[in-house]
């Protein structure tokens, strides 16, 4: 395990407190660390430092995409608004990313909403107040995305988050 704290050189909890209103967790981070949905771009930049050579940045007029090739073989994309907030995340690859870490403060809402859909099996497509999650695929091939409609920059088509 490599913690994000070690990668950034400053306590992660400091950032959390600084970002009042974001729920707090104390977590061990797997080797491939991601920024959290709804979190600040600072966490993405910390991850970039942590994951040298595994990140690609693409900038459009409306947002910036940080693409991480995780050690597991799965690609994670983080969509950051001009205001510096992670408003969307997407994943594709043989293993699911750590959803708790990726969805951050929205993880509990995701789990609760998913459980309300049971008993069923198959792809998850949630349209919750303030949270959209699509999760598809099968064992050894997973694809999905999550985004925050209220944080979407103007003129961004949700279909772009993939």
């Amino acid at each position, binding site marked *: 395990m490599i913690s994000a704290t070690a990668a950034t050189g400053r306590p992660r909890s400091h950032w959390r407190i600084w970002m009042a209103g974001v729920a707090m967790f104390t977590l061990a981070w797997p080797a491939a660390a991601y920024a959290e949905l709804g979190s600040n771009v600072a966490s993405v930049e910390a991850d970039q430092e942590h994951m040298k050579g595994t990140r690609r940045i693409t900038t459009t007029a409306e947002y910036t995409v940080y693409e991480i090739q995780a050690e*597991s073989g799965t690609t994670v994309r983080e969509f950051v608004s001009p205001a510096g907030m992670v408003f969307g995340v997407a994943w594709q690859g043989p293993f699911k990313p750590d959803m708790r870490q990726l969805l951050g403060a929205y993880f509990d809402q995701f*789990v609760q909403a998913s459980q309300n859909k049971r008993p069923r099996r198959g*792809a998850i497509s949630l349209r919750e107040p303030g949270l959209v999650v*699509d999760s598809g695929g099968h064992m050894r091939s997973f*694809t999905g995305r999550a985004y925050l409609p209220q944080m979407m920059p103007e003129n961004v088509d949700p279909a772009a988050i993939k």
Partner: protein
Amino acid sequence: MLRLWFGLLLGTSIGLVGCGGSSNTNVPGTNPIAGSGSNVQAVNAGGGTFNPAGILNGAFTTVIVCVPGTSNCATVNGMLVDTGSTGVRILASALPSGFPLPHQTTGGNPVAECAQFVDGSAWGSVVTADVKMASEVASSVPMQIIADPAFPTIPAACPGPLEQTVTDLGANGILGVGNFRQDCGSACVTSSAPGLYYTCPGSGCVVTTQSLAAQVQHPVAMFSTDNNGVILQLPSVPASGAASNSGSLVFGIGTQSNNALGSATVLTLDANGNFTTTFNGQAFPGSFVDSGSNGLFFLDSTTTHMPMCTTNTEFYCPTSSQGFSVTNTGVNGQSTPVTFTIANADALLSASTTTFLFSNLGAPNPGIFDFGLPFFLGRNVFVAIEGQNTPAGPGPYTAY
């Protein structure tokens, strides 16, 4: 949804749908179904006592697991037949209390697993068992006991939605008979990054690597014969659905007189186990068949022009039934068309409390076609295991 579907369960009655008789494998409703044989395992789909959580569009069977090399065995019904995963996974609650399947160990410590399904994760120990189905036996198969009380602490990195109960899982266990030999493969041999396998000293479970042979295995690949794949055979249902029906899980492809490919089209799969579905001229390369998905999960409202339901909010609710025509193409360039219909799920599910099988239940899945159990109703679907030879060449492939 939870309330509605349990309501359906309370009103269950069982009916049978007759089998078709001809041999055209591409037209639902005309598929021959193997009646018996040393390689034929009975499958029940729909509603009934075999469906312990009362899920819609589930196919179930019964598996016998034994302490390796002994006659100390347990019979587990309510096992979901899942061509979208690999491995035998049984809830501890579905086994006799204290049933002594030996824990797998690494470095003297027991091994546990966080198994990944599309809709959640299952945490439990890795054990070995002799697995018996039809007249076939797989010896000392690494498998998972979900919610094993010996490993109650679920690691934070194995996040939910967790599937630790019959309700969560929709079954007493999962019989994963997909295209892969193992549930992880080579990625877990060299790295713990996939986050599947854990070693569990007394201080707590931590992620670890896992050799191919020690990973949770495809039980059919470990049979001494008929070990190159399976055929799931289920009868068709009318547009209004059916309470239940019965079919077969046939072991082997082209190994006996009852499991020939015949005229089925072979679609070889990419490294992730997918083929390409083309719809309206657009290719969707991450597509697949999966009997463990309980609907036809594909695209989205914008692309399909179907609104979402107001009651069963995760399903499509077209104002009138809508037909779709797509083409599936394998890595080998072979292709075959599929036509299907999506009906209004609110209307379907409110019309009857005893109907559990629907060929026309659809839900979104942006950018992907997941041909779930409705696709299997009325088709014989071949699932060839990676690296295993068959008359059409080695797996992995899907054929129908």
